[in-house]
């Protein structure tokens, strides 16, 4: 009994010191739900367009090698622009302004570097003899792309997608400064009010979203990847 109450005591202390953010989340539940929803949908929107756009670009430059370095250069430059200024640039563009469109566009640009690079690297990872054999047996360029190159490149392409999802989920917090009502707002306000609970609440939920999306993608990757590529 003494032992049990000691544990309870320890846990209550630990809770007061370190887990105050849970109380915060419970207290501000409606806001948490709203911000999480906004955050999540922004990430999903960005990923949807990034996948279509950057996988296409990646495939394009793996075919037209001359464009590859240009694409990498653009991707790298976009990637090194501090996120807050990239968001800032977008709100100065007429028609866009504050809000979701600007936020989404900036994040899509961020996604270029890791995604395009990995799609290209994945396609190039397919060994020459496999392509040569495919051609020699009469597969068309399209069949080689869809039946050989993309399936073999999946693990590498997926690694890029997973990195991007985690990254975008994190950077999306900064979009709070251009009017996005998302989890970044907890962090921003938490800093302004010196409230650790608020900052931690925002950060933890962001992390959970990132880990969850990464986990789901991991499952999909495992399903799609051929067992022949999963050698141990």
């Amino acid at each position, binding site marked *: 009994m003494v032992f049990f109450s000691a544990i309870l005591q320890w846990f209550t202390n630990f809770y007061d010191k370190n887990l105050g953010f849970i109380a915060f989340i419970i207290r501000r539940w409606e806001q948490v739900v709203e911000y999480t929803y906004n955050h999540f949908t922004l990430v999903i929107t960005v990923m949807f367009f990034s996948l279509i756009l950057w996988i296409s670009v990646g495939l394009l430059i793996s075919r037209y090698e001359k464009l590859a370095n240009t694409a990498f250069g653009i991707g790298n430059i976009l990637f090194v622009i501090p996120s807050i200024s990239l968001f800032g640039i977008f709100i100065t563009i007429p028609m866009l302004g504050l809000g979701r469109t600007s936020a989404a566009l900036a994040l899509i640009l961020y996604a270029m570097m890791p995604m395009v690079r990995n799609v290209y690297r994945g396609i190039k990872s397919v060994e020459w*003899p496999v*392509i040569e054999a495919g*051609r*020699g*047996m*009469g*597969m068309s360029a399209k069949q080689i792309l869809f039946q050989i190159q993309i399936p073999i490149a999946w693990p590498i392409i997926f690694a890029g997608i997973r990195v991007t999802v985690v990254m975008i989920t994190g950077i999306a917090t900064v979009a709070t400064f251009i009017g996005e009502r998302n989890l970044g707002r907890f962090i921003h306000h938490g800093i302004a009010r010196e409230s650790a609970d608020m900052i931690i609440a925002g950060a933890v939920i962001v992390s959970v979203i990132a880990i969850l999306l990464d986990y789901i993608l991991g499952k999909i990757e495992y399903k799609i990847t*051929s067992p022949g590529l999963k*050698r141990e």
Partner: protein
Amino acid sequence: MIVLDKVDKVFPGTTIPAVNQVSFQVDEGNICVFVGPSGCGKTTILRMINRLVEPSGGDIYIKGKKVSDKGVNPDELRREIGYVIQQIGLMPHRTVEQNVSLVPYLLKWPEDKIKPRVKYLLEMVGLDPEEVSRKYPYQLSGGMMQRVGVARALAADPPIMLMDEPFGAVDPIVRGRLQEEFLRLQKEMKKTICFVTHDINEAIKMGDHIVIMNEGKLVQHGTPMEILSEPADGFVKDLVGTDREIKLLELTKSKEIVKRTDDIPSEVWEKDSFILAIDPVQRALETMMKKDTNIVGVRDETETIGTISWNDIKKLINKISGDQ
């Protein structure tokens, strides 16, 4: 079956032609082996036949039809030609069964025709379909991969096969076995085969006809016997090697030099020194040494047909090395 007429290939950015005015023809049901050092253009010739490389000049005909005709779709052309390469190039993400059935699927064979075909092919190349069908390439040994590669090329029963060092990636023992098995298959299949190797011994073993290439030019072509006995120049002589007499002994069948006679010396009977008509002459030599004699009897399936003496073998060797 396959005719090359003054075929040239100059790769972009180079001035020296990779293939220079090469003409020859491969007859139906024959194995034609291209041999020469690396960079001699032998692989390029192979890849021009199925249009993986387009010639810069000259014409290539298959069954009298020009392959570069506008009406010929290169992809469809290649589906009619088996292709085996040294690196095999099995699809790592597909099972053995899916690899072998690749061309039949491209040709849109009905499903119920493909399954038994794959099973038949795997058995034919000496693999157990039950065991390997569902395996992935990384689970196979080098020799098994080569067999799958050959089965895949044969899948749609193409009349023509192009083989680029098909047994080059396995150790010599497995290679020897694969070569023999393939020759045995070829006896039944009667495919028209273009075979590339840098190994003159493989060429002599596999070829009905040998084309020797150097620096893009055709140096000599002929049967293995012609190449061994009458090398066109120093290059061919070097390529064939200093042991060409021994190779000739391996290559020549006893029945080709047997002295046909009913009068078999009693020495042959006493020492029981007989060989078969289909044995290479080398076997006659071995038997002579083993039995300490200088004459052996030659038998075909049913009866004794004649003798080979030490002098007969010497004559054969002198015929090709007399000029040295």
